[in-house]
Each structure stands twice: as structure tokens, then as C-alpha cells.
């Protein structure tokens, strides 16, 4: 029996799957793709040059310090960085006393308990603390931000496609809603509480433009002028460092590993040719 029917089993199963596929094709209504404003007006991140891109890329410490300053004075009003500690700023070239001072002067205090009564209270931040959220919890954050939740920034630069360029584009990308868009999609008008930004996936962003004027943050002597563009670039570089603090180590190790492997592979190739020299193959 099996001997006779055997050869037919495979084609029958195959035809079954093909019929099921074909039936799916026939029976599923095909609607024309719905055109949405987000689909047509969403833009890919702008091209930005960063010192850390490429295999030899390194962070620019001056830029990271400026970016940190922007985070400190602007972003941290809403965004925490719960995976980055104050002491990690040593990586940016800050000294221990400087880090201590930064932690101590941080606007948001860290929750703790009163050592005598056990009542919840707050204290000044220490270098071992991570960058705190100004909101007690998610509900408080949403209540203060029109029901939007400011995301934690520790990994933001890796949690978005083309992260640093995306952050830069978003900060510098706020604009009035194009008349063209409203003409084509009258329902897609940005609600009053949101802000139009073509770099945001659904075009309407709850966050108001964080950097509105040149010189909003004053950089130290000898640093570039704090234009909105410069500040956006600096803070996006800083956030890349926050997300990937070991990048330089990785690049350095990678170059060494590659040199080692290329030499090793060449030697292995020589050994291979040498061993096979008498053998036709």
C-alpha cells in the first residue's frame, strides 16, 4: 500500500497548501492601501556627522560635556536616565569633586526615608545615584505632561532607528503643519496640545520644542556658539554616550582583534597551501 501511494503523498500535501493559499488570495478582500498623513509626510532622520561614527570613531569629550550641560539644564526637567550614574560622568572628563558638586546641586532630589521616623522624604543626590526622574511615578509624570510619558533617556539613542540622528532631527524638526498636508488630510490637523514634527512616526509629538532659541544654554569660553543646531548635535552625542558608554573600548578592541585575526588567517592560509601543495584537489 505505502509503496504504491507513497509517491503521491508529497504532491497531495503540497496541493493542499497551495489551495489554502489560493483560497486566502481569493477570499480576502483587497482594499486599496489607505493613505495616511503619517505615511506620506514622515521624514527619515537628517544626515548628521558624529565623531563616534565609523570604525575608528571616538567620542568628543568637549561635545559630551556640552551635551551633558544641555541634558542638565533642559532635558532633565522631564527625562530621567535611570541606568546612568553621576559617577559615570568621570568618563566625560569631570573630576571627582566636580561630580560630587553636580550631584549635590541636581534639581531633583532622590527619594529616601527619614532615618529617625521612617517617613518617606528626599535627600541630595550622591555620585552613586542615577539621574533621577523629576516625577514620583508614571501617573505623576503623565498628569504633569498632558497624559504623555517622557521616556527614560538612558538607552534612547539605541532604542530608535538611527538613534542619534533621529534625536537631533526631532529636536530641530519642529515646524508648522504644511498647508499641503491639511489640504489632503483635513482630519489630520495636529491637536492643540500636540506639536507637529515630521520626524516623529505619527507626526504629532506631545513634547513641546525643548530648544527654542540660540543661547538657551550658555556654553563655556572657547566652545562653539550654542545655536539650536549645535545644542541638538551635542545632546544627541551625549545620549549616544549614555546608551553605549563602552563604544570606544569596543572600537579599540575591534581594531586589535581584526589585526590579530587577519595575520592569523594569512598564516592559516599559508599552512593550508603548504599542506595541500602535493595534493591535487
Amino acid at each position, binding site marked *: 500500500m505505502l509503496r504504491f501511494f507513497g509517491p503521491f503523498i508529497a*504532491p497531495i500535501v503540497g496541493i493542499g497548501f497551495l489551495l*489554502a493559499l489560493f483560497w486566502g*488570495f481569493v477570499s480576502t478582500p483587497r482594499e486599496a492601501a489607505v493613505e495616511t498623513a503619517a505615511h506620506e509626510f514622515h521624514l527619515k532622520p537628517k544626515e548628521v556627522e558624529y565623531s563616534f561614527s565609523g570604525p575608528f570613531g571616538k567620542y568628543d569629550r568637549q561635545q559630551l560635556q556640552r551635551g551633558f550641560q544641555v541634558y542638565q539644564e533642559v532635558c532633565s526637567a522631564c527625562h530621567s536616565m535611570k541606568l546612568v550614574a553621576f559617577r559615570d560622568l568621570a568618563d566625560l572628563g569631570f573630576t571627582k569633586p566636580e561630580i560630587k558638586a553636580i550631584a549635590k546641586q541636581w534639581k531633583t532630589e532622590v527619594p529616601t526615608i527619614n532615618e529617625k521616623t521612617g517617613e518617606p522624604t528626599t535627600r541630595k543626590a550622591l555620585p552613586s545615584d542615577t539621574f533621577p526622574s523629576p516625577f514620583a511615578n508614571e501617573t505623576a509624570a503623565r498628569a504633569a505632561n498632558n497624559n504623555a510619558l517622557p521616556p527614560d533617556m538612558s538607552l534612547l539613542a539605541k532604542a530608535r532607528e538611527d*538613534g542619534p540622528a533621529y534625536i537631533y532631527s526631532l529636536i530641530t524638526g519642529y515646524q508648522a503643519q504644511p498647508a499641503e498636508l491639511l489640504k489632503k488630510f483635513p482630519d489630520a490637523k495636529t491637536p492643540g496640545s500636540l506639536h507637529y514634527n515630521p520626524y516623529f512616526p505619527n507626526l504629532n509629538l506631545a513634547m513641546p520644542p525643548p530648544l527654542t532659541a540660540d543661547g538657551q544654554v550658555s556654553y563655556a569660553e572657547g566652545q562653539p556658539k550654542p545655536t539650536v543646531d549645535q545644542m541638538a548635535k551635542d545632546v544627541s552625542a551625549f545620549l549616544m554616550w549614555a546608551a553605549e558608554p563602552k563604544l570606544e573600548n569596543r*572600537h579599540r578592541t575591534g581594531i586589535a582583534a581584526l589585526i590579530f585575526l587577519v595575520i*592569523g588567517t594569512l598564516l592559516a592560509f599559508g599552512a593550508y597551501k603548504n599542506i595541500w601543495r602535493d*595534493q591535487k*584537489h
Partner: protein
Amino acid sequence: MSFPWAEHYAPKNPVMKWLDSRLPLPRLVYNAVGAGYPVPRNLNYFWNFGVLAGVALTIQIITGIVLAMHYAANADVAFNSVESIMRDVNQGWLLRYAHSNGASMFFIVVYIHIFRGLYYGSYKAPREMVWLLGVVIFLLMMATAFMGYVLPWGQMSFWGAQVITGFFSAIPIIGDPIHTWLLGGFAPDNAALNRFFSLHYLLPFVIAGVIVLHIWALHIPGSNNPTGVEVKGPQDTVPFHPYYTAKDGMGLGVFLIVFSLFLFFAPNAMGHPDNYIPANPLSTPAHIVPEWYFLPFYAILKAFTGNFLGIAAKLWGVMAMFGSILLLFFLPWIDRSPVRSANYRPTYRWFFVILVIDVLILGYLGQAEPTATVVLLSQICAGYYFAHFLIILPLVSALEKTLPLPNSITESVLGSDAEAAPVAAHTA
């Protein structure tokens, strides 16, 4: 082992003699991957990938064991424990990136290894068992990789687990209870994370065990070769060591260079950014996509859109997705052509090329937004996948006029005049 002219292990050192008469482990190694295993002399670079897959598994096990020392399988802290590996553990970033990219590299070499088997007919008699065990390894790898991807407990981890375990709920009547039982809850949570971690640690060792069987089964008939002609005599083979150890050593170098390029310079290129967002059961990502190595199967799953014969579309999709892998178990009996190597199968060769392109397109469609065109293309490509194995292959193997085979491996290497003793003509 398998050939009478194989070199015999003859230890000269008294210590080795002593050991050999009590525990012949060196003899086992000598016969498995040493001079005691004669291998066809004409293997090309595609035969490097089996060894590379073994190396990839070893890298995964070593990095994985160290990562497990720092990882915490608890839904509340899993995400942060991975980040602490990335930031605080000495060389933790290297371990973690090596493990996550190592999984991708493992799949790349295994896919090449599988397609090499398909092209050169390595699944055919007398190597069916090698092939069957290989498919078992592939299935175990997929289970291991899926559960490993859940462990960092990011958004894609969570939602990927949600979608993939949801397959079981497609089974009529008993599907939902099975789904709940497997997860230890109604949705992926701490119970699921813990069992995934436990199994993710177990399965690689099961894979290692099946690899032992895979190699054992291979050593009975010996390795296939690009002509697909069986070994006829000593002149057709060279000892595995030093000839193929040297060749594999070089292949390993090239593999590690490619691996390093990803690991050190684009460690997140094959991952998904959403997995750097902690798992949040209340917020569904815009696009749930599995890891790249599952995409062709994911496209097959999504291609079935209609209820047919009273079976729901989802169940068709799940059956087709599992079927697309399970049918590989039957391949040795579906393809009945006596000629192994596609070098001598002019018709099959073209269908093989089309299959490779088809699978690549399915991979692209697996991650594309499901527009009408994408769905239609997935239906065509999924249909072609099944048609290739279940309809075209039986027909081609019955009707194809194959090219004349060389009389022996040596003849194909040296030209016909070098063949001293002609061997009886065989199937063509």
C-alpha cells in the same frame, strides 16, 4: 572508521599506550577528526560550514555560561541585569554582543550548511540519517534562539514571545489550555521568563548531543563531495588531519573576521531597536517582527489569509510554518533522483537557484509592512516554497535527464586518463 584504508591509531608514547588500553579517548578523537577519518579530496569551501557551526555553538555556550552568571531571570530585573552586564561587568559588553551576534552568525553558517546539503544532495542515501539529525538540530536551534531572544525582556522579547507562543492557541479546542500551560499564565510573564531561561540553558547541550549523533552518522558512509560520486578507493581521499584541519583553520579565520566586523563595528545591526525599550504589556510596538533568521517562516505564516476547508487561516499559517520545516524530514524520499550533486542535474540546478531567491524574498517579506502587494507576494513565494519541495522536486527527479557522472572523484580532479582501474558505470 568507514574505509578499510583509514589510518589506524598507533600510539608510541607509553603514556598514550597506557591511556589507550584503559580509556581510548584519543583514539576516538583520532578517528573522528584526526588522520583516522578519510575525506574526499575534492571538497570545496562550502564544506567548511559544518565545522564553523560547531565553533559557533561553542562560542554561544562559553559566552552564554558567563552571561548566566550575571543575568537575573526575573521579569522585574531582567532588563536591567542585561544593561548592568553592558555597563558594569568587566568586558560584559563584549560577552553580550558576542552572544547576540553569535546567534546570528550561527544561523548564517547553518543556513549555508543546509543549502550546501540541498545543492549537493547530501541528504540522499546513504546519508539520510545525517540529514534527519541535522533537521532536528535546526529545530532545536530555532527553539533555543527564540527563548534566548526573550531573556533580555525588552519590547520585542515580550511581544515576540506573545506572538510565537500564540501559535499554540491556534489549535482547535485544546489550544488555549495548552498555551496557558506552556506559558504558566495567560500572557508571558515571570513564569514564562523563568522556564525559557531554564530551557535556553538546557537546549544547547541537547544540540551538542545531537551533533555527536550527526557526526557519528556521517562517519558511517563518510562525507559527500561536490561530484556526489561515492569514494571508490584510497586515491579518492585524504586524511582529515592535517588536510581538512588546515583548510578549516583558514575558514575559521575568515569566519571570525566577519563575526568581528559585526561584533565590534555594528553590534546592533541584526537586532531590533525596540528591544532596548523595557517590556511593556500595555504598549504594543507598531511592528512586531522576529529575529531576521525566522523571517522567511514568519512570511509563510502570514501568507495564509483565508479560512479553508473549515480550518481557520491562523491554523493554516501555523501548520504551513511548521510544515515548511518538517517537510525537510521527508526530503530524502521526496527527491528520488539517483544523482546527488546538482552539478550533474541541469534542471534541478535552476530550481535550486529559484528556491534560494524565493527564500530570500520571503525573508524580506517577513519584515515588510503587510500591504496588499506584500501579502500577495508572500502568497506566491510561500506557494512556490511548497511547490518546490512537494511538486517540482518529485517531478524533476522523475523526468530530468542528468549529465554523465565522472567515474570517480580522482577522475574528476585529475582528468579521465589518471584513472588506472575503471569502475563499473553507475546510475546517470
